[in-house]
């Protein structure tokens, strides 16, 4: 498979971006990481991917279906991809605004390495969603709540999951 795309690329002189992302996309859609589905919201735009994440079992996000947007910069894989939550989630590592930004160490420009694969990024993201990293929180108030009163946080996180990620918006049906 890799070989074949390699040949095609030399004929069409595809850029690194296209080639790498086609390959990664092909692998990810056929064999997605647990709890995830990947698709392109716009078939002709390889820079934007939708990741549909099912809330990890026995977490307050269980039963929810969260859509993330993965944006590949034009010099991918030399520059890190951007990852953001489209669905609201009550989590200390996801910014509670219209950006839904996630602060993952490996996605910082000076820590990113071109050999890192998107599948690694996604697995890392799922890990953080399962086990929030309180020391590196974007939402200090949520982190504070988790530390002080975990029950209250769980209650609110469940409430948000029900309210925003209950899978009524079509995209999530595939995920569950």
């Amino acid at each position, binding site marked *: 498979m*890799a070989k074949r795309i*390699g040949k095609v690329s030399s004929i069409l002189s595809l850029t*690194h971006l296209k080639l*790498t992302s086609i390959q*990664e996309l092909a692998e990810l859609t056929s064999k997605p990481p647990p709890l995830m589905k990947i698709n392109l919201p716009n078939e002709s735009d390889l820079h934007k991917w939708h990741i549909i994440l099912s809330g990890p079992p026995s977490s307050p996000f269980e039963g929810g279906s969260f859509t993330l947007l993965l944006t590949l910069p034009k010099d991918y894989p030399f520059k890190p991809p951007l990852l953001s939550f489209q669905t609201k989630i009550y989590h200390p590592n996801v910014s509670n605004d219209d950006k839904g930004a996630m602060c993952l160490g490996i996605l910082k420009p*000076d820590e990113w*390495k071109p*050999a890192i694969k998107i599948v690694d990024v996604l697995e890392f993201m799922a890990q953080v969603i399962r086990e929030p990293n309180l020391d590196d929180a974007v939402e200090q108030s949520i982190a504070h709540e988790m530390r002080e009163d975990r029950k209250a946080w769980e209650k609110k996180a469940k409430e948000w999951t029900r309210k925003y990620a209950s899978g009524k918006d079509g995209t999530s049906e595939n995920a569950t």
Partner: protein
Amino acid sequence: MDSEDEFMSGASSGDDFANIEDSDDDFDNEDQDLGFSQDKDIVRTSKKSYEVDFEVLGPSQIQLQQDVQIKDVADVLGQPPEAAAILLRHLRWNREKLFDRYMENQASLLDEVGLEEDASHTPSTKKIPDFECEICMSGDSDVETYALKCGHRYCVDCYTQYLASKIRDDGEAARIQCPTSGCKRIVDSKSLTFLVEDNLKSRYRELINRTYVDDMENLKWCPAPECIYAISCSVRKKDLAKIVPTVTCECKHPFCFGCAHEDHQPCPCSLIKKWIQKCEDDSETAHWISANTKECPKCQSTIEKNGGCNHMTCRKCKHEFCWMCMGLWSEHGTSWYNCNRFEEKSGNDARDAQAKSRQSLERYLHYYNRYANHDQSNRLEKDNFAKTEKKMTLLQNQSGMSWIEVQFLETAAKTLQECRQTLKWTYAFAFYLARNNDTIMFEDNQKDLELATENLSEMFEQPVEQLSAKKLDILNKNTYCSQRRVTLLSDTAELLKRGKWTFNISLD
């Protein structure tokens, strides 16, 4: 100058370079050019007490300094220069630390930067049968590939593009790592120059130099736009409470070596930082605050009254007080909206505190206004440079003086500028001085300089037709101004060096 003598005398700060000469005789006669003479005792060799010794370095000298140290370390450690360079850069050019750590645990240090014990190699590319590059996820048997010693192999195209993006977009050079996730091996300069295009090589050199200057405590870039020079000066951070190290770059830009701000003698770096911060916070709003607000009698927060009721509750500390008398609201009983309790003690105390706070604001404004005034005059006089030249031409034509003979105007313009610059900072300095005899002497010096400067300024601005008759007066006044400035700076610097000033604020 005899660089060797100075070099050896730099016992306090020259340790870093102490064995350069011992270890390699070839460098003896190059020392003069290498800027090692910066390491000498600032106090002993200064011409005036407010002046410091410094040296301007161009790009090639900066390069040379690095090469000498790299070669030296390479010789001592028996490592190839590329490895020595990586190690030096990794430890921010601290040779002592490098040697210590190398002796202590060679393997762990080398591992930390991804070097192995034998790191000599000549970079070359290789074709690998059925190769697939992990970055572009494609490949073939006839693709050229490259790997550092770590063996993480990628196709040359990807490697080159990776390096280019690091150098061009991220401005990285000395600490670019292997593209493999988790591999800390640093791309050495030999590999790098082997892989990237020529235009990026010069950018790489530039960045390497930049990191070098940034890493060295005795080097600083001239902050003037587009300036390519660096200054070498032995004044360290810990000296800054005792000296104000003004240096002048090859490009004529004078600046403070301590904080890269404009020349701010006689005021120490830490004070100008506080002062500028204070001015940014205060100056524009200070007048308005003074006119429209009061401070909470309990927590001193500034409060603006924006409604009719006199019952104030401080947002911050929840203290309830009366706007009229500043006394406790609870003492008002039932006479809520009408304050007739002006004589109560709590109200009196609060008003005293209020008056004190206003007083401190008045005091600040006193210094600020004078500071700002000199700052503005200075700026105007800088703009006037072209005007001075016109004046000189005009005077030359009218009086029949030669170009040399009208130079006194330019000299005066320069003196005026210097004096204003100094005066401006004397006010920031004085603001932080405690009242004592030294302060009174300082203010006398300041007053003399200010008066002389204003006189000179006035003479300077006379109509051109009167200037030729005033030439001698202007020259005299000019000399007097310069002398007053030197006196003020010397006296102030002397006390600063001896730690004799008393400030109303801590110096750190």
